[in-house]
């Protein structure tokens, strides 16, 4: 209980309070839609080459021609923000996926592997928890060297114990749940109970949690980029853009504010959607 992952606490504590999509949820949905379009077809919503350099047009404040202004090399920030969506989201999503897969592995081992294995995995999770977030990521970077791939793996790895604990908790509670017991009473085989009851019921909330996790993964990855250990310029990754723009905060705020805003909005939107999903699926518990 003491190391209860925050997101579960926030997510599972939310009882079924509303059914209809709120304004917030609709706005979040719209923003996520924007992100998806920006990822799949950035050309559809931006028209300027995100890497087109024009030194003469550097540091232009937001205008009709450049909605978010231009950066130090005269590149259009709006186009770069759109172009950066796929990179940033890719990092966020893959990091979450890595965390999820590792967490699932740990959780399944603990949840099904018998007492000794459960004990061992729990200790492993405890140990991993003792490297808080960014620290584990930095350790990974020391070992593997900086870069976007390492950063992704590092962030993924640092989220794994959280997911592992949640998966284990889910599995343990489902395994002792009434419906698994009644399936056993009916004489169904363990394999059938596992595939038809335990896994589906354990995975659904996990995927919802993952939605919540993507936002935080984007933030951590951006932090690594900011420290110069993640994605690197001229890649149009939000954290890297922010990092590059921060030098000019005194003279050109738009270099910093817009990529930062994207990170914040992405996190908010995924959290809102994740929570709304929790509420919707949580009702069937």
């Amino acid at each position, binding site marked *: 209980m003491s190391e209860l992952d925050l997101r579960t606490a*926030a997510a599972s504590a939310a009882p079924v309070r509303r059914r209809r999509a709120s304004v917030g949820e609709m706005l979040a949905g719209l923003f996520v839609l924007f992100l998806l379009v920006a990822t799949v077809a950035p050309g559809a919503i931006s028209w300027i080459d995100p890497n087109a350099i024009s030194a003469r047009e550097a540091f232009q404040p937001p205008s009709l021609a450049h909605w978010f202004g231009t950066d130090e090399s005269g590149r259009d920030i709006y186009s770069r923000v759109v172009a950066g969506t796929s990179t940033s989201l890719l990092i966020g999503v893959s990091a979450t996926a890595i965390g999820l897969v590792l967490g699932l592995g740990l959780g399944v081992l603990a949840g099904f592997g018998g007492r000794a294995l459960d004990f061992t995995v729990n200790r492993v999770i405890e140990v991993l928890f003792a490297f808080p977030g960014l620290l584990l990521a930095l350790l990974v970077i*020391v070992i593997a060297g900086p870069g976007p791939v390492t950063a992704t793996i590092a962030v993924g790895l640092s989220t794994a114990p959280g997911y592992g604990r949640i998966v284990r908790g889910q599995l343990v509670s489902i395994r002792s749940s009434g419906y698994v017991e009644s399936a056993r009473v009916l004489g169904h085989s363990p394999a059938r109970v596992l595939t038809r009851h335990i896994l589906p019921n354990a995975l659904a909330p996990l995927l919802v949690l993952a939605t919540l996790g993507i936002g935080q993964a984007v933030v951590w990855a951006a932090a690594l980029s900011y420290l110069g250990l993640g994605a690197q310029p001229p890649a149009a990754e939000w954290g890297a853009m922010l990092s590059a723009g921060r030098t000019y905060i005194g003279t050109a705020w738009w270099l910093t504010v817009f990529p930062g805003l994207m990170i914040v909005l992405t996190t908010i939107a995924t959290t809102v959607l994740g929570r709304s999903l929790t509420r919707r699926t949580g009702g069937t518990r």
Partner: protein
Amino acid sequence: MTPGLQTTNRVDRSRSHRVLRWLLVRLGGAAFVLWAVATLTFFAIRLIPGDPAEAVLGGPGSQASQETLDQVRRDYGLDLPLGVQYLNALGRLLTGDLGTSYALKVPVADLLSAQLGGTLILAFSALLVAWASALALSLWSTGGGRIAGSVGQAIELTAAALPHFWLATVLIAIFSSALGWLPPVSTGGVLGLILPTVTLAIPLAGFLAQVMRETMLDTLDAPFIVSARARGESEGGIRLRHALRHASLPAISLSGWALGYLISGAVVVETIFARPGLGRTLLQAVTLRDVPIVTGVVLLVALVYIVMTILTDAASRLADPRLRTAEGER
């Protein structure tokens, strides 16, 4: 015939025994985790490509002579078999020796013990501020009807989504550059602590407020609140005497996690606000690949984290008697 207080007598008799047992289990667990962290870090560090001796001399560019390399290997015990090195490292660890920094050539333990205080002061003041503001926010947002609820939720969400480095930039721009109220870099005093503390506290407060608000709403739905109201308790009294306590429980138990989160954040915040501390030391060590320092920081943070979880665990047990009685039934 009236049932006696036999249940409570049993609780009494075994209480001290149980507290001791709990403490032993926790300390044992802590020792194990520390050992595992040390072991894991020791072997993980060996995964770093390249010769550690070369790293001591400044990396692959140094092209140090074989002689120098051998000398360094002997100095740092790198010529011994891995198992012996490991045991040596563990042995040194037990005496509080974390090795010698590659870059600074000073004992890591001395270096870090000087840095630990700054980080802890920062982390704890941020924890305190986050705690207080989360509590205030959730009290307000659960008490003021639907609009306050929505606004409260929006504030929590936004706060939790703010990256430290961005927040720091914006806060400096506003409070130092534009308004000139607060110093942008550490002064060593309280004034310089404000901006870094706030930077770290805001996102955490967002997280905590989410949890607190949910707990508070659940608490306000609980039958004992009806009981309290039926005694003539006012809304303020309900919040103060009942809801507040319940809402702080998850926040207490999350404090261990929160401290880890804050130390992570300190890496960025200490660099931006030029505060001395573990985070900044770590970042510099990472860029210099100063392995002993990285290892030392990781171990130290793990230690802090473990101590903190034991403390929060104890605090939770103090604050919530249900935890003490529930223990045995597992």
